[in-house]
């Protein structure tokens, strides 16, 4: 995955950490992810298997 395309150099990026990995993303992406990604407090019960 390290070779996946990341934003072009001229775009301002910020760091987004997840599962011990760090991605360089647009500030807008980070803001969006912080709103939508599930956090432990969002779980009503123990997570069921997928």
């Amino acid at each position: 995955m390290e070779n996946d395309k990341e934003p072009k150099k001229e775009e301002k990026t910020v760091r987004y950490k997840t599962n011990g990995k760090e991605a360089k993303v647009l500030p807008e992406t980070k803001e969006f992810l912080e709103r939508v990604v599930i956090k432990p407090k969002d779980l009503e019960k123990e997570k069921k298997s997928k």
Partner: protein
Amino acid sequence: MKPCVVEDSNFIISVIDPDESFHFQAILLLNELITRKNNIKIIIPSIVFFESVIKLLQRGVSPKKVENSLWDFLYRSEILNVTFPETAAFRIGKYLQGVNLEIKTSDLLVGHCGIEYEAQILTSDKTLWRALKKNNYQKAYYWHDRQQRNDFLKELDELIRRSI
């Protein structure tokens, strides 16, 4: 017309659920789409929303969080949520000829939606991906594969270049 991209429910769930195997890849791909948001339309068939909501609830995510997260997707300017007229069922029947009948109805609808919009289709379903390729629909991408993700972005940039 702006280039269109159809997302499947696995992509949305992979963005939302950090425990998904392809969460990291999904957020990088999402970032690429947001980078190009002024030049594209993201199409999310209503069946994809249904699947996403149901799967997340089944995993124990609170209904409030599921609703808030999915609304956030819906409200994005580049997102287009589409539904299907009943006649779509007859058109979809055409794709079934020579196609692996193990494809789920929801995946067929995702494929149908992509074809109708002449969109690039991001799918995590290899059966659908193979069926589309077999039917000479070249804009289908199995997004779990790195090479396919890179091919998808390369083609997307070319489509954007041609549309401007």
